[in-house]
């Protein structure tokens, strides 16, 4: 058996050529309105495909075109180029006007996630109305995160993939000005002076939590 023969035999069981894989992920991304993960892509493609590799090629192919391949969290989606928005009056969806409270709450969740309601209130200096949280939950821009391991085990809020998708963010680390805010110490949860006196037990855990938050944003 010559080398050539061996190669041919092997290729019978090989994944399709990368160009073909590129076509496949192109078709799937075009067909889906929601971002699709590499894992999901591969589950739909023939066995042995490398969707991540094909994605590199496809993203390059669409550079500078009318639509672009964007990354949203660990998934990919095709979106129209932002500079062509003016062509889409017909497709424009009137988003519900968000109140200032809702916008601020959203920003606080995005920059401080995972964050409890008490922490949001501490930052805004006022109580957070349930309607505000409900609205953001309903829009699927925020969701419940893990419970905080502090007394009362309060729920936390985090932003969703829909949020990232809506604002064209690859991940929460890309939030505008995040780095500056962090280096200015404005994302730390700093207990008010005197608070330690009454809450000594909690303090360690709080600190640990605070570390967890900043870790989330580190590479």
């Amino acid at each position: 058996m010559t080398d050539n023969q061996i190669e041919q035999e092997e290729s019978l069981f090989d994944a399709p050529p990368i160009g073909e894989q590129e076509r496949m992920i192109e078709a799937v991304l075009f067909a889906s309105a929601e971002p699709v993960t590499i894992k999901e892509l591969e589950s739909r493609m023939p066995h042995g495909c490398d969707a991540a590799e094909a994605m590199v090629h496809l993203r390059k192919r669409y550079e500078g075109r009318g639509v672009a391949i964007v990354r949203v969290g660990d998934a990919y989606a095709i979106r129209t180029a932002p500079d062509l928005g003016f062509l889409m009056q017909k497709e424009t969806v009137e988003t519900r006007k968000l109140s200032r409270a809702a916008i601020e709450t959203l920003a606080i969740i995005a920059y401080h996630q995972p964050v409890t309601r008490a922490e949001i209130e501490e930052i805004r200096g006022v109580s957070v109305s349930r309607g505000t949280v409900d609205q953001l939950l309903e829009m699927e821009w925020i969701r419940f995160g893990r419970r905080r391991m502090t007394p009362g085990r309060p729920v936390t809020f985090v932003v969703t993939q829909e949020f990232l998708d809506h604002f064209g963010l690859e991940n929460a680390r890309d939030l505008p000005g995040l780095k500056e805010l962090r280096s200015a110490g404005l994302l730390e949860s700093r207990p008010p002076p005197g608070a330690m006196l009454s809450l000594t037990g909690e303090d360690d855990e709080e600190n640990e939590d605070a570390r967890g938050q900043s870790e989330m944003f580190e590479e």
Partner: protein
Amino acid sequence: MPMAEEIFEEGRPIGVEERLANEALIVDVDGYEGPLDLLLMLSRTQKVDLRKISVLALAEQYLKFIDGAKELRIELAADYLVMAAWLAFLKSRLLLPPDPSEEGPSGEELAAHLAFQLERLQAMRDAAAKLMARDQMGRDFFKRGVPEDVQRVRKVTYTASLLDLMQAYARTKTRDDFRPFVLDRDAIMTLEQALERMRGLIGYAGDWTSLDSYLPEGWETDPAKRRSATAANFSATLELTKLGRIEIRQGDVFAPIHIRKKDQKDDG
């Protein structure tokens, strides 16, 4: 926003017009989202970096503002008053020389924390504004207009084990073993048998004939046999009617059923 200081200038008499304007402003103050928000607004009068803000001056501004509002008999929410009390306390701490015997955080620590809170709130507002200024989906960029849903194709495969198979066979056989009366089936005419028989017979049924007359020989007397054959014949008749081979009629409820061959030319 220098209004607050101007408006509540102590001891200055205020005219009606001015008073109305003030009230309008105070009502507007209602729109503030709590004391921190109000403090942030007042802090802008200092025109300095929030990090270098004079908390003492800010506390004084706030207290003056609250006094002014009280003078105008504006109902203030409790948290505004709580903040006023706290700021009055803070002010005294900041003004008096530190008393080493006193417990709790120093005035400077408290002031620093307030400054931090204000700076953080301002930072979050700026961040929110930047976020909302981003390109947004459905406004600046768009998703696919006609997504093709993934069709879920459900494929059902059936399975059975050899044991299932043997048990199934054993079951049918056990039935035989325990049921000599399977021989009873002598008294049962199946639909297939009746259908087969009727097909052959209807060729002769040119005119209306009672269904009873089609009972096979030897099935008319034994009641069990007769019942079975009648039922099977009737079912077969219905089937043949459906096929358009015969016509069927019954004069009245429980009256004898008659059938006759259907003319071939009537067939569609």
